[in-house]
């Protein structure tokens, strides 16, 4: 068996390295190639691109298209949906470019669902006052991802590094100058020098026990950037999707409610009317921003209260409520929600045509991420970040469903073009100048591969996931958050004593999971400490202790978690960019009718 010192280092060079082959990474790669043909673009991913978690997005992708809709209204819905923590210049740019990007996907072959006359169809989504969610049945992310992957095959400048597991950013003279990755097939350490690096690695909801995310969604890019001093911003804002399957957390799209599905408690009562989202809308007549079409934070919070009052169903996989689609009828379910029917049958043993689906909130999406400006540039020169791994300032304290798929295209293009521009004006990086750093990194990863400590990885991962549910869930309290912070510090310490049983090089997934666990621990720590530091309630961050309301005086600010090595992060704050929408009360249901007062 090779010892840590004799593992070879492979050296590669590119103009741009993109880490992550999901929607954002692929869109960035295409944009860079189109902007400056002839660039060498390395697309590095730990999975084949079409496995990326974009594939699991179901409901749709926002973009104003109807005559009676407007960019201003999409802007307002997004900003109020985000509880005014959105950077409004970013939202402005986003709403103005989302439709164009959706159309580009259409021109590339994306099979968007159509109206009888052949035009694009749109559906209703939570928190959106007008139907503006483009969809491809209920497999929107799947079709977007495959369209982008297939289209990317046209571009000879895009060189894929499939199943290369990225471990580190490489730094030269204060700039990001490449990445380091493990070739999963051989275990070989590989350095790729580059003039610009784009992180597009997705979210981190695997820090939670119950989540909608694939196993690969482990916050890799966030942790890599954080370790190089790039702040992670707004990490306390984690979205619980209101409708996941109990136990597995498998996602049941919001489109189920957009199409008219309703949520009922144990007594058959549509309980959302009791939480500021009513009055009850007639069955089969969903109304935008009412009841089941409220925003995700409020709908998930309502479940929590129902559970506390013992009005939920008890299943063998824990508490649940019913998502009832029966009144839609078989034809419409098959047309609009075929995947949901399949998932419910396979993973919950119910056919939604005949029975309601048991659902509960599960961790879904990280609103926060790597701090970037509106051009996707991070504070580290040469490094860009885009998609769920990034915090560009679009989603604020609560993301509206269908804004994140659109974000991938809108800002993926920006990231690709920005990186291309930078690469065009930069001198090539000599891989030899990165070698000392890469050898040092390799030594560390090789040490982990051959480690023989007494701690079991699964124990640490399970303890992490439970502790996050406990302290950093839908509702939060100082004591429980502090407990989670303490547990995380202890788990980091145990992680140092990790023992691995597999010391091989070929597709050693135990080793790769161990690296991922290190990433998860870093990211979880930023979430927990950011949550503790925000002494107010806003969007998805709701406190039950002394801070149950929003406090714009003190916290109309982004939080920034800055790495301090093995210590918990330093917490700082940064102003929010407010251009034209002053903070006001968030209102849904009939409360929208009464005059709004500034708060």
């Amino acid at each position: 068996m090779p010892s840590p010192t004799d593992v070879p280092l492979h050296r590669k060079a590119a103009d741009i390295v993109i880490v992550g082959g999901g929607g954002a990474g692929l869109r960035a790669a295409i944009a860079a190639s189109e902007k400056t043909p002839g660039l060498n673009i390395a697309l590095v991913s730990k999975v084949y691109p079409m496995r990326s978690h974009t594939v699991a997005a179901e409901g749709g992708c926002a973009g104003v298209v109807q005559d009676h809709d407007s960019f201003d209204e999409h802007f307002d819905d997004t900003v109020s949906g985000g509880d005014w923590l959105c950077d409004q210049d970013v939202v402005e740019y986003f709403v103005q470019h989302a439709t164009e990007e959706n159309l580009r996907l259409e021109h590339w072959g994306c099979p968007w669902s159509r109206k009888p006359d052949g035009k694009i169809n749109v559906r209703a989504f939570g928190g959106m006052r007008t139907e503006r969610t483009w969809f491809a049945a209920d497999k929107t992310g799947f079709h977007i991802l495959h369209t982008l992957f297939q289209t990317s095959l046209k571009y000879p400048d895009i060189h894929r590094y499939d199943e290369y597991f990225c471990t580190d950013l490489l730094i030269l003279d204060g700039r990001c100058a490449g990445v380091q990755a493990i070739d999963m097939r051989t275990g070989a350490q590989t350095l790729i020098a580059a003039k610009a690096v784009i992180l597009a690695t997705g979210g981190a909801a695997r820090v939670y026990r119950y989540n909608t995310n694939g196993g690969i969604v482990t916050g890799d890019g966030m942790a890599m950037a954080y370790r190089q001093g790039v702040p992670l911003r707004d990490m306390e804002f984690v979205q619980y999707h209101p409708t996941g399957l109990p136990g597995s957390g498998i996602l049941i799209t919001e489109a189920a409610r957009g199409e008219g599905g309703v949520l009922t408690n144990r007594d058959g009562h549509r309980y959302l009317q009791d939480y500021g989202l009513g009055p009850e809308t007639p069955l089969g007549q969903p109304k935008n921003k009412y009841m089941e079409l409220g925003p995700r934070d409020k709908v998930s919070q309502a479940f929590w209260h129902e559970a506390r009052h013992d009005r939920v169903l008890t299943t063998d996989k824990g508490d649940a409520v019913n998502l009832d689609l029966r009144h839609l009828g078989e034809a419409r379910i098959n047309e609009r929600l075929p995947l949901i029917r399949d998932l419910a049958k396979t993973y919950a043993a119910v056919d939604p045509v005949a029975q309601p689906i048991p659902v509960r909130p599960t961790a879904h999406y990280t609103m926060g991420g790597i701090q970037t400006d509106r051009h996707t540039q991070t504070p580290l020169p040469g490094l860009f970040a885009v998609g769920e791994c990034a915090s560009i300032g679009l989603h604020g304290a609560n993301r509206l469903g269908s804004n994140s798929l659109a974000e991938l295209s809108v800002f993926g293009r920006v990231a690709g073009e920005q990186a291309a521009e930078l690469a065009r004006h930069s001198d090539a990086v000599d891989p030899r100048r990165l070698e000392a750093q890469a050898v040092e990194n390799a030594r560390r990863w090789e040490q982990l591969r051959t480690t023989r400590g007494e701690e079991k990885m699964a124990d640490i991962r399970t303890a992490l996931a439970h502790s996050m549910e406990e302290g950093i869930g839908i509702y939060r309290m100082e004591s429980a958050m502090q407990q989670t912070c303490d547990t995380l510090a202890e788990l980091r310490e145990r992680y140092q004593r990790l023992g691995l049983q597999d010391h091989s090089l070929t597709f050693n997934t135990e080793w790769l999971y161990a690296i991922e666990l290190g990433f998860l621990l870093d990211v979880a720590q930023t979430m927990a400490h950011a949550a503790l530091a925000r002494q107010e309630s806003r969007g998805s961050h709701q406190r039950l202790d002394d801070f149950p309301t929003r406090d714009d005086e003190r916290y109309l600010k982004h939080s920034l978690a800055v790495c301090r090595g093995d210590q918990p992060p330093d917490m700082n704050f940064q102003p929010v960019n407010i251009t034209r929408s002053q903070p006001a009360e968030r209102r849904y249901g009939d409360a929208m009718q009464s005059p709004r007062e500034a708060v």
Partner: protein
Amino acid sequence: MSDSITLHISRYRPEQDDAPWVQSYEIPYHRDTSVLEALNYIKDHLDPSLSHRWSCRMAICGSCGVMINDEPSLSCKSFLRDYIAAGELHVRAMENFPIERDLVSDLGGFIDHLKTVQPYLMREQDKPTSEGEYLQTPHEMGRYKAFSQCINCGLCYAACPQFGRNPEFLGPAALTLAQRYNLDSRDEGQSQRMAHLNEEEGVWSCTFVGHCSAVCPKDVDPAAAINQGKVASTVNYGLNLLNLIRGKHDG
């Protein structure tokens, strides 16, 4: 209620093993435990050295294809309860692919085949997005819709005896993907794609066993796509022949 069940898993660690061998694991059995969950249980609690691919857990990412009792299957969409009657549960890497390690197959050749068929819209002139969408009625979309549902899991290649004999055969998923674009009313690239379909490694290598469609977890029906491709290839061949004759006469 919990019982136990034994999984016989084919192991192969190229740094140690000359050939695959079988290792057995006893795990707790619940009615709704998927084979993927069983594999993850083994990885977490019994033997961390077992390697397998997985991600979404909901049969959409296409990562977790394996042979279960000799049938190509997604481990996340297969349940232990369905194998109790068989009395045995054997899991091994997908047939017809080289094995990298344990249950991990080398899919490189398959992924390259996808690229060969030029799976993207081709038009003589692309219009700017400012001019809006290309119209496509639900009826027009219906012509290719099923063929666009492929998750690239590779199960149809594991089921295809022709691919087993000749890895250069483009195979069910790639040929289906070609047909998906050929049938798209927005596409004008069929003549370019037909060049690949007409070749020896194209549609004519298929002997219509049909097992590809039987194992497809997404009801894509690649056998039907390839059959349509054969018809198209015949027409294309005839047209080419006609052009050749015409060309001769014109010349």
